[in-house]
Each structure stands twice: as C-alpha cells, then as structure tokens.
C-alpha cells in the first residue's frame, strides 16, 4: 500500500468540508456563497442561514466590522490578499470566537476578481496569550511612568526673594518614557540651593531607574561635596564604580542667595541661560567638561565657573529637547531659546515655563523637555 493510497477514499469534498479550519468563499461584497462544515460548527449557523443570506462581516463584532471595512477591504483590493487578520466572530449563541483569517482574491474563469477565498483559524488560546503580553507591556510602561513621576515630584525650595519653577513635558508619539530629570533642593536651608537638570541616554524602564539612581546620588553627594565641580567629580566615581549612567549629561547650578553668587558646572550639558534686568539673555559658557562616565581618560577634570547675580536675575537650566530640532543647528535652537526667554522676562516663572514648553517644542520630532527656572 503506497502512502498515497492510504487516503484514496478521502474526496476533495471531504477535505474541504472537514478541514481543521473554517473555509468559505464570498463575493467581493462579503456575501457568503460557499462554506464548509467546520465553519458551520464553529459559528453554530448552518449553511442555509449563511449562504446567500449573510455577509462575512455581518458575523463580526461592531469593532471588527470597522476594522474589516477600514483595513481588510482596502488591503484585499490593493494587494489581492490579506494574511493574519485578527477578528472575533459572534456565534449564533452570542458568544465570541477569536479567529485569524487569511483571504485571497479568487479570479473566475474569465480572470475577473469576483470572489474571495477565506480560511478561518481558531485563535482562542493565542488571543489570551497575546492579551497577557499586551497587559505586560502596558504594565511596564505604567511602572516606568509612575517611577519617573514619583521621582520628579516633591517640594521646590522657596524663600523670600527666591522663586523656583519647573516644567516637564514627555515626548509624544507613544514612545517609552525618556531619561530627563530635574531637581532643586537646599544645600544649606535658606542660604544656598542646587538646581540640577540631567539627561540619561536611552528610554524606558532602564533609563528611568538610571535617572533615579543618579538623581539620588547627586542629592547624597551634595551633602559632603563643596561646589558643582566636586559634585560632578564624585558622581563620576559613583557612576563608574557602579557601572551606571554612561554618557549622561548633567548641569549643576548652585545659587548662594546671601552672596548673590552663582556657581555652575556642565557635564556635556547645554549651557545655563541667564538674564538680568539690564542685560540681554546670555548663555553661561564656562564650567564645561565631558558627560558623566565616558570611557576616556580626562573625565577626572571637572570644571566650574561662577558669576554674580544682580537683583532681579533669572536663571534657566533645561534639557536639550528645548533647543534641538532635526531641521536646524543647535546654534539656531539656542538663539530661539534666548529670544523667547528674553521676550518673556516680565512673566512670572510658572507662566514662563509653560510658554517655553509650548513655544519651543519641536512639533516635528518631539523629544522630552524639562526645564527649571529660578528668580533670584
């Protein structure tokens, strides 16, 4: 007995009727013209109810019908075939059966595309698993977001003659959260405070946890280190020893309220922007050094610079999302920031923050933006 002979009794008809998938032929408008036994059994509808009387899309959920019209039909028309479309079929008893369908345009004898052949696969278990995967992915995103928000919350330093405000706007377009952070805290209560903005490479949970570590590390190191450069040097040691935050950029600005002095250091970070009552806004280009934990020899050298703050000074520290646009150079972005910052010098900090966030966002390629403004 040859292997072919074993099933010689099985007719093409039986192969069609008893196939382990639903199998149907429809007109291009969806009207069912032929259907196999498996499909009848799965739907609980017999062929008298289906053939000529029902369109395939009539068997779908309302949401599935929209998907059918907006995706399945155009795909089938344009490409002649669609594969692995996930839908739910509503059975005769009202219960739902998750299915995957494949369809192909089926030319008639004269080559006209008048009919469609569709196979329907039971996808109940697969759909359950996929839903678990989706839930897990959303949970990851939620955790990362919550983590980030919890770290960005907290009271801002406030004192007579000092107003600090912050703004944060995450990138749109469904990307995972970014690694930008800001912080403002007292070094000596009522006397001097630190403003910090940092930017960790990457996105998602990993970036959020790194950001959290570095933010806490700076707070702790600020207890013992004197001045922004020393804080960054200590942060380098920390980052290197614990292998975190490679290539992070940070700006630390230390404001001494009594002495009206600003000390600042930028580890690969865009320069702070200062405006005083009598001068135009200017970028503070001093105190520059490499990003944190870069694999070269000279990271040990952390520089800082200082300047005095006349009464009515306003300082802005920010992340690069505020000045970077894909279609422009950094210089153009910085010029735009300086102009907007100067033009709004009479606005209170909170209003300034929100208008800068709106005006200067790159609507073409939105990135995370965070900024911190201090009026002294």
């Amino acid at each position, binding site marked *: 007995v040859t292997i072919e002979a074993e099933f010689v009794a099985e007719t093409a008809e039986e192969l069609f009727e008893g196939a382990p998938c639903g199998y149907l032929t429809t007109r*291009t*408008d*969806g009207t069912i013209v032929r259907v196999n036994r498996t499909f009848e059994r799965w739907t609980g509808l017999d062929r008298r109810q289906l053939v000529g009387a029902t*369109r395939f*899309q009539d068997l779908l*959920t*309302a*949401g*599935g*019908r*929209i*998907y*059918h*019209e*907006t*995706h399945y*039909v*155009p*795909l089938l*028309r*344009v*490409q002649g075939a669609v594969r*692995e*479309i*996930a*839908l*739910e079929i509503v059975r005769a008893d009202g219960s739902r059966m*998750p299915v995957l369908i494949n369809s192909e345009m089926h030319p008639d004898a004269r080559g006209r595309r008048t009919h469609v052949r569709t196979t329907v696969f039971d996808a109940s278990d697969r*759909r359950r698993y*996929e839903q678990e*995967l*989706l839930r897990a992915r959303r949970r990851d995103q939620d955790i990362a977001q919550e983590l980030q928000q919890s770290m960005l919350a907290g009271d801002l330093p406030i004192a007579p003659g000092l107003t600090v405000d912050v703004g944060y706007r995450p990138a*749109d*377009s*469904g990307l995972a959260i970014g690694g930008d952070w800001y912080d403002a805290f007292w070094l000596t209560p009522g006397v001097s405070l630190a403003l910090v903005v940092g930017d960790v490479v990457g996105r998602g949970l990993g970036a959020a946890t790194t950001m959290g570590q570095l933010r806490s590390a700076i707070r702790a190191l600020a207890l013992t280190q004197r001045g922004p450069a020393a804080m960054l040097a200590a942060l380098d040691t920390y980052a290197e020893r614990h292998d975190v935050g490679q290539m992070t950029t940070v700006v630390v600005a230390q404001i001494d309220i009594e002495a009206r002095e600003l000390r600042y250091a930028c580890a690969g970070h865009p320069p702070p922007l200062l405006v005083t009552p009598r001068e135009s806004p200017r970028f503070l280009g001093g105190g520059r050094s490499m990003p944190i934990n870069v694999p070269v020899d000279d990271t040990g050298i952390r520089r800082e610079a200082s300047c005095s703050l006349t009464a009515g000074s306003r300082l802005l520290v920010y992340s690069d999302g505020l000045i970077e646009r*894909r*279609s422009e150079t950094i210089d153009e972005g910085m010029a735009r920031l300086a102009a907007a910052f100067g033009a709004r010098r009479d606005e209170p900090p909170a209003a300034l923050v929100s208008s800068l966030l709106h005006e200067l966002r790159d*609507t*073409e*390629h*939105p990135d995370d933006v965070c900024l911190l403004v201090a009026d002294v």
Partner: protein
Amino acid sequence: MRLHTATLGSSTVVVAARNNVHEHGRADAQPMLFAHGFGCDQTMWRDVWPAFADRYRVVLFDHVGAGGSDTGAFDRDRYASLRGYADDVLEICHELELADVVFVGHSVAAMIGVIAATTEPERFSRLVLVGPSPRYIDDEGYVGGFTREDIDELLESLDSNYLGWSSAMAPVIMGNADRPQLAEELETSFCRTDPEIASHFARTTFLSDNRDDLGRVTTPSLVLQCAQDAIAPEPVGRYVHERLGASTFVQMRATGHCPNVSAPEETIAAIRTFLGG
C-alpha cells in the same frame, strides 16, 4: 512618485515631506486634493486619481502617522481632534499655493475637509465627501450606527492586529523624505501604522462630533453614499446632505465603505458628473 522634491521650492518641502505629498497631472490646472480616511493611506486613491490627471493638478498626501508620512511629526495634542488634521490640509494648501481647490475626502477625511472648508471657505471650490459621517456614536435624536462600547471593541481589535506590527518594520514605514526607494516600500507598508498612533487616530475619528460644522459649509458639496455601508450608513449620509448648505446626494450601487477601491469607475463617474463633465 517623489515629485515634490523636484517640483517644489525648498520652503515648501517641510509640510510636503511631513505629509508625503505627491503631485500628478497638470501643474497649471485647478487643484484636486485627495484625502484618505482612517486605516490606510493615499494608495486608496490609486484607481481614482488618474482619471482626473488630464484636467486637474492632482495632489495626494498621507495624514501624519499614516503611510509614508513623517511619524516623528505626530503630536497627541494636535491630533486629538479633527481640527489638527484640517490644519494640516490648510497648511498643504498654503505651502503648495493651492487655490480654488476641489477637495475629495474619504470617510473621516470628508469631515476633515468640512472643517478646512469652514475655516477658509474662499480656498475651496467644491467638496466631494465619500462616505461621510459627522458622528459615529448614536446620540439623542441621531443615529450614528455605533455605541461607545462598539468603539471600545474597535480599539481592542486594533490592539490584537498590531501584534503583526513588529519594530523591524518601523524603520521602513516611518521612512523619510530622503529615501527614493520609499515608493516601493509604500506598497508593503500599506495599511500598517504604528499601533499607538493608529489607536489615537481611531479615538479621534470615532469619538468625533462635527455635526455643528455642517451648517457652516458654504462650499458646494457632493455626498457619495454607498449601499450597505457599515461605517457610514445611509441615514447618516442623508443627515450630512440635509445639513449642508448646498449639496448633491448620490446613492451609489457600490457596497461597503470604500468605493474608491471597490468601485473606482462608479466613483469617478459620480465625481465627474458633479464637477461638470
């Protein structure tokens, strides 16, 4: 396919690239702007626009987030209402200096055109609304065809289908204006959209209510209504027709919601008649 980089000045490339604008036909003729609906992209018009290329300046584009558009330009706030998409249409008109425009919008893009035409009525000479619906969800005294639960189900079915979206496809689909091979890739990326963006567009589309805008339209309009349209059923098309100032209602023989792909000849004939031959 990538006419815009060759034919447009550098100042106009920004919006043209963002919306993957393509031009055909006579550059000096009256513009005819085709807008696609929720789901796919400008490919939806491929069997329709060539019929108008001999008499019109045909302009095709993708909504931001769809087809070959720059998905980096997607902004949740801007596109939280159809107004954002209508602003894009107007920006395209401005940058390409389109005047006296015949706007042809399918599905949700019909309402996008309505909003654009109420904002700058002088810019549009005719509106062709294919399967329009000003509101998809039933309301008191209004039958849209869907309940809120139905729309939630749609969002779920989007989720299940986007498991077919893999990140490996993203670079191809997101593409950018500097890549000449994009035209070929478009075919394979047809109907594929970043799941987050598609879900946002679905929300914006199916939760929209633009019934009040209809009465403000002064542009002569054509309502093309399909038979057995599950998305924009006949009563909805009639409602649009009655509310519009000056409109013509055409009941098509074509069934379904996409006569531009399922019955291009009938679609072309109806538009031709409306435009006067």
